């Protein structure tokens, strides 16, 4: 069920919101490099370049297709990193560095490797956040 606060957003409003947060993620985790962002999203670099030109992430939020889902997973990863690390520089360092808990690979390279890598990183961060006693 849609929540009241965003129910009046148009498709374009939602596309603009997605672009705004995606460009923040690109700036923080990918050093602002659109090509690396596109590579991790498995979306053509020219498409991402067009989003930057338009200021809109031109996917239909109501259809929730594969490309859209991949973006949401990346944003969930970013949200977890922002919860775990207060310092944005630490988020980027973790994202770009090899990790013994993740097959010795960096989270960024796992995202580049495909949707399984993307889901692995998302689930790992969910797990880490839930580890407790």
């Amino acid at each position: 069920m849609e929540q009241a606060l965003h129910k009046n957003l148009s498709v374009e409003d939602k596309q603009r919101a997605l672009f705004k947060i995606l460009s923040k993620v690109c700036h923080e985790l990918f050093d602002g490099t659109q090509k690396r962002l596109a590579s991790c999203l498995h979306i053509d670099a020219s498409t991402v370049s067009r989003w930057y030109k338009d200021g809109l992430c031109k996917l239909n939020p109501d259809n929730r297709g594969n490309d859209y889902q991949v973006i949401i997973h990346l944003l969930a990863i970013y949200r977890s990193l922002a919860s775990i690390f207060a310092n944005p520089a630490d988020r980027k360092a973790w994202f770009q560095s090899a990790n013994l808990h993740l097959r010795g690979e960096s989270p960024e390279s796992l995202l580049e490797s495909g949707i399984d890598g993307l889901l692995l990183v998302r689930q790992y961060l969910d797990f880490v956040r839930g580890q407790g006693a």
Partner: protein
Amino acid sequence: MPEIVWRVYTPTNLQYAADTLSADEFDFLESEINRSKTSRSVGTWDMWIKSPFDFPLPVAANYSARFLPSGFHRNAFYSALSPPTSVFETAYHHLQMRKASRAEFSFRWEERRIFSVGFDAHDAADLRQDPEVRRLMDGKDYSASQHWARDHPDVPSILYPSARDPQERTCVCIYEISRLDKKSLSHETIAYAMQGDSIFVRSDRDDLPWSVSFPEEA
């Protein structure tokens, strides 16, 4: 017998997009992220109580734990009978998560929450006096404890000594959410900061350690 258990968790940082999105845009994004989670929706417990029960099952090999073997059919709520034990346990995992990365991290306070909740321990398996307890609480090798869990697939909860608390106070692994009250009793903010093999602890409580070290785990 009613008990109180304590648990530390990492809260969602709801400020992550505050400089970027309006309130309704943020609400849209949160709704999309939450919709994309594989949630088992275990009922009307407070979110921080029920979230450990929401992980996909069976337990994936990467996410096995002391009493959660790979392929296990249950999730678990790990907690402790005292706040310091909960801090020792979670500080250990905080350190391990950072040490697994090759990155160099800054010294920065990271916000955490500690809460307490009522727990029905009347049918808990109490391993604290078990002759095998040393093997069950091994600091690194979980094979004995995971074997025990497989051999006792219906036990609702387990009491066992902490491997991270120097005083070996009691940890509680709870498989059955019905043994937990639906509402937490208390909820406080604390913070961890890592430096080398140590975790510093910031809190208004006077019963928590101010620093925790695990040099042998480095």
